[in-house]
């Protein structure tokens, strides 16, 4: 399988990438290429021009800026897994990245590509929602920052404007009382999730002060289970409450039917993933 023909340009800086996006109609950015190239082989995508951002060093790396972890868009999944800074300040990302694809793919696949591609099966979008991350975008008019919440609009549809590029992701570092959980059901290594669920929770004793529940691959794009969050917030954790919230998670789902299962099965699996992730999140909040 070979993609249809395209022009290929190597961008040397973020500004150069934005300029090349503006100069080449319908050009696509290629990051790790492990979502885009398979789509191009199948002719699901036929961009006339690819702009390769792999050589741009300013897009790589992980730093701590005040109370935010800042991750360059071209940071690979394996770089996240091996980062002591991420382990210390946002271990959820490591737990999740270890469940993405396989070792070879994690060498190429990037967090920015995963977020910006807009595939509902990608794992990082729901994680960005749960973590309340901010996305830093660069376009012809310069840089802007936008919350991840509100960025995911539909299948292959995000808040990226024309000729804009995701350059980095800002994630609030873990505060005391905060816990994370991540659960993902997949049929085999390398497959997308049947359902995935990242959970952020802040606890005061046994009471949920704040909770965000992301859901992967059970809707046209990554979503939050807001009704379940409302049910949990301000309440003491009990088995009954979690069971009710799980029903609300299930009802928030609107999955596409495919070989991974029908809508009822996927929605129920999302509820199960929520239960597991929430339990782990509460346990980790209590340290």
């Amino acid at each position: 399988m070979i993609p249809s023909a395209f022009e290929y340009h190597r961008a040397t800086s973020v500004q150069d990438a934005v300029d090349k996006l503006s100069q080449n109609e319908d050009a696509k950015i290629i990051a790790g290429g492990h979502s885009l190239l398979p789509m191009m082989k199948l002719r699901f995508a036929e961009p006339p021009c690819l702009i390769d951002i792999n050589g741009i060093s300013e897009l790589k790396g992980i730093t701590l800026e005040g109370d935010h972890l800042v991750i360059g868009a071209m940071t690979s999944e394996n770089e996240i897994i091996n980062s002591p800074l991420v382990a210390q300040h946002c271990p959820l990302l490591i737990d999740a990245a270890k469940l993405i694809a396989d070792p070879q793919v994690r060498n190429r696949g990037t967090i920015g590509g995963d977020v910006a591609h807009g595939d509902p099966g990608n794992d990082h979008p729901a994680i960005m929602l749960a973590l309340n991350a901010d996305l830093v975008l660069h376009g012809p008019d310069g840089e802007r920052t936008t919350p991840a919440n509100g960025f995911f609009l539909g299948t292959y549809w995000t808040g990226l404007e024309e000729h804009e590029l995701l350059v980095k992701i800002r994630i609030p570092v873990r505060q005391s009382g905060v816990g994370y959980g991540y659960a993902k059901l997949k049929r085999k290594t390398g497959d997308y999730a049947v359902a995935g669920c990242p959970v952020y929770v802040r606890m005061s004793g046994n009471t949920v002060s704040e909770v965000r529940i992301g859901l992967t691959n059970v809707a046209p794009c990554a979503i939050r289970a807001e009704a379940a969050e409302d049910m949990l917030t301000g309440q003491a954790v009990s088995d009954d409450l979690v069971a009710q919230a799980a029903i609300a998670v299930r009802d928030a789902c609107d999955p596409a039917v495919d070989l991974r299962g029908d809508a009822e099965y996927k929605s129920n699996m999302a509820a199960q993933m929520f239960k597991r992730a929430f339990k782990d999140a509460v346990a980790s909040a209590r340290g």
Partner: protein
Amino acid sequence: MAKQHVSFNLNGKSVDVLVEPRELLIHTLRENLNMTGAHIGCESSHCGVCTVDIDGQSVKSCTFLTVQAQGSEVLSVEGLATTDGLHVVQQAFVDEHGLQCGFCTPGMLLRAYRFLQENPNPTEDEIRWGMSGNLCRCTGYQNIVKAVQTAAQKLQQA
């Protein structure tokens, strides 16, 4: 589309190829450079049979454009053995019978070669996780895991 000149090192030797931007590295290796060790399996970055080493990382060469290899160090299975004989990882696959039909073996070897540099003393679970991007439809993986364990021991002794 205009073809582009791409230069990289393959198994320690400099090569220069003229390719369309859409050409995938696996095709350049097999059809242009006659290096047919890396195989084509699923062509969708699942099976790992096309795995090569690029700048010290395992990469599935079916999902990598040749133009992206410009200036890189590429190692394919043809580069593992030396005039002294098989690489330790290759010999371990022979000794432990880590293959049956052999189709997946080039990818397994290249992944094991890199994995044992990332993690020189792995547990069985770590081997299974580290090799999880390579599929074998014959062996049930038991002897592949043994081969990686044996290679790890031999490399530690060396």
